[in-house]
């Protein structure tokens, strides 16, 4: 079930360095939200607080509240591992497990959750691969290594792996930056389809991509090197790209900096 996300006064630190400052935003369910902004502005850092991956980095630490359907996933008693089971992630570079077959890659998350029933696994694998628009290409070689696929196929395999566990939210960290234009198009189509079932948040450096796939756009920026990243403006994608409120947003999307 797609969940609504609300960030309240979120600050992210790497040890004592404040990387992202005072994020307040609301992310709609069943919609694609794009994070844009220059490098180092904290988009990815903030994305990674949403599945608490930030805490796997030595020194990574978060303050504030991140509500998912009203529950604070940053609260003291919440297990980061449990959060990650509900919040899937797709990374910048395709990263299928190199030692696993295509099939085992897709069901890796299910197996973690203790699912052992072969027919259930097969069923879910097919459904996930179909949703990821990969089924037709790999159905005859599910037992082959996942690393043997092309880059675009690998990324769709990673998306299948993320949705196989039926998460509530899917985070995508520049999912197309390592792909060719045709694979990019395939992933973008897929992103649009995914929002019918999930809350999708995507970090992208590609302005056209943000305007093509997202419903809402959030613009992040930094005041300078060593300064924390901040959320400058957030709104419907059309408005951000045609008539933003902030001059900094206008400068960025029109290519004047960044």
């Amino acid at each position: 079930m797609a969940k609504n996300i609300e960030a309240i006064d979120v600050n992210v630190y790497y040890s004592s360095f404040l990387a992202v400052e005072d994020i307040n935003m609301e992310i709609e369910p069943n919609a694609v939200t794009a994070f844009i902004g220059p490098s180092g502005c904290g988009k990815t850092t903030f994305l990674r607080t949403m599945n608490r991956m930030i805490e796997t980095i030595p020194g990574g630490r978060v303050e504030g509240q991140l509500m998912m359907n009203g529950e604070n996933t940053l609260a003291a008693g919440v297990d980061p591992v449990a959060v990650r089971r509900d919040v899937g992630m797709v990374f910048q570079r395709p990263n299928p497990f190199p030692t696993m077959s295509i099939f085992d890659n897709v069901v890796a998350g299910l197996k973690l959750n203790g699912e052992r029933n072969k027919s259930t696994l097969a069923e879910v694998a097919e459904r996930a691969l179909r949703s990821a628009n990969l089924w037709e290409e790999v159905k005859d070689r599910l037992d082959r290594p996942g690393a043997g696929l092309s880059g675009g196929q690998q990324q769709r395999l990673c998306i299948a792996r993320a949705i196989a566990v039926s998460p509530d939210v899917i985070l995508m960290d520049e999912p197309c930056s390592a792909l060719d234009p045709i694979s990019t198009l395939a992933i973008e189509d897929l992103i649009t389809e995914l929002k019918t079932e999930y809350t999708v948040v995507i970090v992208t450096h590609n302005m056209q991509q943000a305007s093509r796939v997202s419903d809402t756009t959030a613009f992040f920026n930094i005041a300078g090197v060593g300064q924390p990243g901040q959320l400058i403006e957030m709104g419907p994608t059309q408005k951000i790209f045609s008539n933003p409120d902030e001059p900094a947003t206008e400068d960025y999307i029109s290519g004047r900096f960044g």
Partner: protein
Amino acid sequence: MTAFYPPDTKPSQKSRSTGRGGDRAVAFLTSSAGIAIIVTVVLVGVFLLWQAIPSVMADQVSFLFSREWDVSDTDDLRFGILDLLYTTVLSSVFAMALAVPVAIGIALYITQYAPLKLAKPVAYVVDLLAAVPSIIFGLWGIIVLAPVIQPVATFLNSTLGWFPLFGDGIKSPGTVFTAGVVLAIMILPIITAISREVVDQTPLLNKEAALALGATKWEAIKMVVLPFGKPGIISASMLGLGRALGETIAVMIILSKPAPNADFNPSLFAGGETFASKIANNAAEFDSPEKTGAYIAAGLVLFILTFVVNAIARWVINRRKEYSE
């Protein structure tokens, strides 16, 4: 070829020949190094065969299946390697069984769990173990370690004594058990060092994939780190095994030689001789080509054994090659 370059831009013969001269020299040096190692291995094999065959032909008992070893009468050579093979394999496999889990544990601790400040010193101390000469390991093993692990041996013998491997042995501390424990410590550094290296190469991207799926740290290690490191850990273990099979001095000091014609005892708590310790123990006897040949034949079997171990390791690693990028 010449048509490729427009006439006026063709590189001058001089500069080309300099470059090629350097290439030729390096190519010659590297290929001679490569060929030299092959030739050396072949020559060692040929030497062993050439020295061993006459004695094995003159052997009055089965070379492979006899337990006898009496080469004092050169006209009546009676030698078989069965006991040597058993003790060699038993002590080495036992050492592996002890060392590999510990080595993997240390490698995982250093690369995955230890805080950076601690990881380096721990790795350094393990490496330092490799610098201890084997004679020291032998002395320490028999004098210091053997009494300390004696209670363990007694316990295993009294609880699992019905199993031949843990059956009654000898009173002296010079058992295969002691030798195996010392061998385990001796091969620990090499297995740890290589396992640590390969495990450390696990792409962060893959570890993150597992964590992002909701894996705990240990689950991520099981899903990603260990499968990724597996071929390397296997080769590391085989290198360790190879070292254990051939270890001479430490084993020679520790193992009690059984009395001639003693009954075969499969127990870890019995004494015995390995190929290497047998040869070293009897180095004084190499006074005739017939006797020498008998020992060289034993050495040849050791040579083949390590070869087979390495071949198996290669095979295991190659079987899953397509899965390891």
